[in-house]
C-alpha cells in the first residue's frame, strides 16, 4: 500500500512532465524556439528555472548532508549562493540581455563571437569542446543519481532507474524544447522549495523544539554551532569558508544560467524576477542547512550524512509525502539534466553546424537535428552511467566549476570592461578552464582542499585582463559597450 502510494505520486509527476513536453512542442519548430523558447519567458519562470538548474541533486542530498555534518559552518554557502544570485540578477542580467537582443544571439558562444567581432569561430569551437566534455560527465553523474533514487525508493533496480530518468527527460526536452525545460524547471523549483521549507519545520518540531535541537547539537559537538566549525579561526577555516562563498561565483557566468536571461521576454522580467530568485535561493539553502541540523539531532549516527533527507522523509512523513520527497529528488536531477542536454545540443547545432561549418539547412531541419543531438548526448550519458566509466566520472569532480571558470571571468570582463579584447577573452577561457582541471588534479589536496572555483576564476580573470592590456580592443566594440551601458542605465 505504501509503495503503491509512492508509485502513484511519482507516476502523476512524470505524467505532468510529459504533458509539459507536449504543450511546449508548439514553440520548438525553429532554433530560437527550441533553444530559448522564442525569448518570451516571464519573470517567475526564469527566476525559479535558473535556481532549479543551478542547484542539482547536490542541494537536496549534499547541502542537507553538510548541515548534518558541519552545522552552521554551512552558512557560508548560503552567503555565497545568495550573493551570487543577487549579483547575477542585479548587475549581469540586464546588460547581457541587452547585448544578446541586439545580436539576436541564442547561445553564449553566439554572444561572445559577436561581442568580440570574431570571424574565426574560435569561441564556438572552444565552447563546444568545454561544454560537451563537461556536460557528458555531469549528465552521467546525474543519471547515476536517478538510478539510485528510483532503486532506493521504489526498488526498480539501478539500470531501470537510469533508463526511466533519461527517457522522461529526453521526451519532454526533445518534444518541448527550452520552453518545456523552463516550465518543468519552474515546477521542479517550486517542489524543491516546498520540500525544503517543510523539512526543517517538521524536523525541529520532531526534535522537541528549537531549544532542544540546539542543546542536542551542542552536546554532540559544540563546533556544529560555530561559524568557523571545527577548524576555528585558522588558515584551514578561512580557506574552507572562502571556498563555500566562492560557490556563488558560478551564478554570474555559467552558460546554462545565462540562457535564462537571454530567454526573458524583456528587461522588465529581469527586474521583477530577481526578487523571486533571491527569495527562492534563500528558501532552498536555509531550509537545506536547518533540515540537516534537525536531522543530526534526530538521527545522530548515520554512516552517510547525504542520506539524511531520504531518512527524514521516510521516518517523519506519511507515505504520500515520502513520494513527494522522491519526486523532489528526481526534480532536482531532471532540472539539471534537461538544461545541460539542451545547452550541449545548442552548442553543437547553432555554434558548430550552423555558424562554424556554415550549414545552409532550414531552421526546421536544424531544429530537428538539435533534437537528434539531444538524444545522442543523452545516450552517451546513459552508456557512461550504466558502464560506470571511471575516466569520465573523474570529470565530474570539476564539471560544474570547469564550465563556470571558463565562462564567468570572460563574460564579466566583456560586460563591464571596455578594454577587453578577443585575444584576452580566448586566453581567459583557456586559462580559467585549464587551471580548474590542474588544480583539482595536482594541487587541491596540498592546499587545505581549496575549492577550485577560486584559483580557476582568479587565473581566468588575470589571463583575460593581462592579454587584453597588451592587445588592442575593437573600437566599434568599445562604442557598443558604452551604448549598452547607456540603454540599460544605472543599477541604483
Amino acid at each position, binding site marked *: 500500500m505504501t509503495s503503491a502510494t509512492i508509485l502513484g505520486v511519482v507516476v502523476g509527476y512524470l505524467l505532468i512532465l510529459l504533458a509539459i513536453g507536449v504543450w511546449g512542442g508548439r514553440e520548438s519548430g525553429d532554433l530560437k524556439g527550441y533553444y530559448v523558447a522564442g525569448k518570451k519567458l516571464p519573470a517567475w519562470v526564469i527566476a525559479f528555472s535558473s535556481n532549479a538548474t543551478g542547484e542539482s541533486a547536490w542541494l537536496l542530498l549534499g547541502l542537507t548532508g553538510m548541515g548534518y555534518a558541519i552545522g552552521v559552518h554551512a552558512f557560508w554557502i548560503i552567503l555565497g549562493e545568495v550573493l551570487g544570485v543577487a549579483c547575477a540578477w542585479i548587475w549581469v542580467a540586464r546588460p547581457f540581455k541587452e547585448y544578446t537582443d541586439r545580436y539576436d544571439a541564442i547561445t553564449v558562444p553566439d554572444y561572445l563571437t559577436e561581442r568580440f567581432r570574431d570571424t574565426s569561430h574560435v569561441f564556438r569551437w572552444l565552447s563546444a569542446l568545454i561544454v560537451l566534455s563537461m556536460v557528458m560527465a555531469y549528465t552521467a553523474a546525474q543519471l547515476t543519481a536517478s538510478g539510485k533514487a528510483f532503486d532506493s525508493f521504489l526498488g526498480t533496480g539501478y539500470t531501470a532507474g537510469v533508463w526511466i530518468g533519461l527517457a522522461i527527460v529526453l521526451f519532454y526536452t526533445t518534444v518541448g524544447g527550452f520552453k518545456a525545460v523552463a516550465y518543468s524547471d519552474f515546477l521542479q523549483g517550486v517542489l524543491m522549495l516546498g520540500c525544503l521549507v517543510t523539512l526543517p519545520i517538521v524536523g525541529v518540531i520532531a526534535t522537541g523544539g528549537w531549544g532542544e535541537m540546539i542543546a542536542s547539537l551542542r552536546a554532540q559537538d559544540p563546533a556544529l554551532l560555530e*561559524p568557523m566549525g571545527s577548524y576555528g579561526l585558522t588558515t584551514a577555516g578561512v580557506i574552507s569558508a572562502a571556498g563555500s562563498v566562492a560557490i556563488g561565483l558560478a551564478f554570474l557566468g555559467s552558460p546554462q544560467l545565462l540562457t535564462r536571461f537571454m530567454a526573458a521576454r524583456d528587461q522588465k522580467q529581469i527586474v521583477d524576477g530577481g526578487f523571486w530568485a533571491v527569495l527562492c535561493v534563500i528558501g532552498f539553502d*536555509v531550509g537545506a542547512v536547518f533540515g540537516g541540523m534537525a536531522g543530526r539531532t534526530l538521527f545522530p549516527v548515520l554512516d552517510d550524512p547525504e542520506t539524511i533527507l531520504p531518512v527524514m522523509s521516510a521516518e517523519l512523513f506519511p507515505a504520500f509525502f515520502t513520494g513527494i520527497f522522491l519526486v523532489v529528488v528526481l526534480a532536482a536531477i531532471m532540472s539539471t539534466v534537461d538544461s545541460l542536454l539542451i545547452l550541449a545540443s545548442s552548442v553543437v547545432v547553432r555554434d558548430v553546424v550552423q555558424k562554424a561549418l556554415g550549414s545552409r539547412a532550414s531552421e526546421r531541419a536544424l531544429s530537428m537535428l538539435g533534437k537528434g543531438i539531444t538524444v545522442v548526448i543523452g545516450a552517451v550519458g546513459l552508456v557512461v552511467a550504466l558502464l560506470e566509466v571511471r575516466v569520465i566520472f573523474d570529470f565530474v569532480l570539476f564539471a560544474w566549476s570547469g564550465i563556470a571558470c571558463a565562462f564567468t571571468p570572460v563574460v564579466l570582463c566583456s560586460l563591464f570592461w571596455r578594454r577587453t579584447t578577443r585575444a584576452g577573452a580566448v586566453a581567459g577561457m583557456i586559462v580559467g578552464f585549464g587551471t580548474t582541471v590542474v588544480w583539482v588534479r595536482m594541487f587541491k589536496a596540498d592546499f587545505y582542499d581549496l575549492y577550485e572555483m577560486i584559483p580557476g576564476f582568479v587565473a581566468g580573470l588575470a589571463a583575460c585582463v593581462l592579454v587584453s592590456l597588451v592587445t588592442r580592443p575593437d573600437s566599434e566594440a568599445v562604442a557598443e559597450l558604452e551604448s549598452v551601458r547607456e540603454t540599460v542605465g544605472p543599477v541604483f
Partner: protein
Amino acid sequence: MPLDAWLLLFVAVGLGLGLELAFVRAQRRRARPSNPRSAAEDDR
C-alpha cells in the same frame, strides 16, 4: 545558537534581499515618468 552564527545568517539573507530590494525600487523609480510639471515643460 551563538550570536556570531545568527550574525552570519542575517548578513547572508539580509545582504541578498537588501540589494535586490534597493535595485527593484531604483528601477521602478526610473521607469516612472518624472514629475508631471517637468514632463509638461518638456512637451512645450
